[in-house]
């Protein structure tokens, strides 16, 4: 079996679709910080992460950014393509290095227009992504940085194959749209509580239930919706 099926959407393609896709899927390296799309620019490919995690960020005119969703092995980057938008309203950047597969935009559109099971699957994924975005918006307003940090760590953890994240505090600050000092302070608190250990950009999660307890409900709300809408989920 190819590693492409580590991606849950690719994994759940029916046999006929998989046969068509397999020869045209292209494996790509997704190093930390790589920008897959810039907002407002045309999409050339869609990406199916297998071991990488991609963050969708909304970028303001002054350059400040806030994360609106994360996409890992449960999803696809570039859904705006099949809604008829040629561009994307967000920036997509690799937040955790790994691999993924890509498909050209034309090919994806052609598959989508066949209106078969692929269409159904991708549309349901889009709805799950919309839920994540709406929940992130409300979370940004109502929840503390500490809660958001826990939510963010849990979302990332679900999309990884072990309990270690390689991540600078600067990147986390960019994701959460807060200052770096805020992230440092939050991470120190979690470390003192024995939930994570943090050393030079390496975060190891030590106590997952503890993180879940400290997170706001937004993590569970989003997870539940993904579990409900998608055939295989982010569960490890």
């Amino acid at each position, binding site marked *: 079996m190819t590693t492409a099926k580590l991606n849950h959407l690719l994994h759940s393609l029916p046999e006929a679709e998989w046969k068509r896709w397999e020869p045209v899927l292209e494996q790509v390296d997704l190093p930390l910080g790589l920008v897959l799309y810039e907002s407002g620019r045309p999409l050339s490919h869609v990406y199916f992460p297998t071991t990488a995690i991609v963050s969708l960020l909304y970028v303001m005119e002054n350059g400040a950014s806030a994360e609106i969703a994360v996409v890992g092995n449960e999803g696809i980057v570039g859904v705006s393509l099949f809604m*008829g938008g040629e561009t994307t309203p967000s920036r997509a950047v690799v937040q955790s290095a790994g691999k993924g597969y890509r498909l050209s935009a034309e090919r994806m559109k052609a598959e989508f227009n066949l209106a078969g099971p692929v269409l159904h699957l991708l549309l349901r994924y*889009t709805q799950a992504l919309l*839920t994540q975005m709406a929940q992130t918006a409300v979370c940004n307003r109502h929840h503390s940085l500490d809660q958001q940090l826990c939510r963010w760590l849990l979302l990332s953890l679900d999309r990884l194959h072990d309990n270690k994240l390689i991540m600078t505090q600067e990147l986390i600050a960019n994701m959460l749209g807060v200052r770096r000092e805020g992230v440092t302070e939050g991470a120190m608190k979690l470390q003192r509580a024995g939930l994570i250990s943090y050393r030079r950009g390496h975060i190891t999660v030590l106590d997952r239930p503890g993180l879940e307890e400290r997170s706001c409900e937004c993590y569970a709300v989003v997870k539940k919706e993904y579990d409900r809408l998608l055939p295989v989920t982010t569960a490890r």
Partner: protein
Amino acid sequence: MPNSPNRLLSQLPQTSRRRLDSLGQIVELRLSETIGTAGGPTDAVLFPSDGFISLLAQVDGGHAIEVGMVGREGMLGIQLALGVSTEPLKALVQGPGQALRVSAAAFRRELRADPALRATVNRYVYVLFAQHARAAACLRFHQIEQRLARWLLMSHDRAHADHFRVTHEFLAYMLGVRRVGVTLAAGALQRRQLIAYDRGEMTIVDRAGLADAACRCYASDQAAYAEQFG
């Protein structure tokens, strides 16, 4: 149809529009009526011709925040086009008016049979997608006053009148801030003679000035819509 048609419907070929008209019925949107509850079933889609509906995300069993708005430029119930029949968000009528209501079953049949309808709805999903994304960033970075100005412009676009009824309490709920924050921000906009507010009646006095006072998110939302629908 009422005299101010829904803009999505008016994008459709005449045959598609006639079919929806014949399948649906005109219903009233009553102020403060809850049309959908997150997690509840989707019985129908609505194409407002006037009036408008807020899409709210809720947390902690009470706090809510507006992440989108639907008026005559849009529709309520896009999740059906995505193959999902539960409501993703709370939908609350903010401006009274009328809408064309088409049952979920009939709408699904039309979507399957009518590529023009599918294409139009998909484009609208993209617009709402951009609106949700922007909401997350706007809530993080922008001041209450900018956000209030944006909200007033969005409502003004959909209300077809320079006056509408709204309390500070309701605004605080929509914007996810405390009432006193809204009172201060509304006071500042009033002193600059952009709005007038008297006992629950909001009047837009200077629309251009309000556009200057709003964050860029308003213009960005407009641009995203124009890009898809012209």
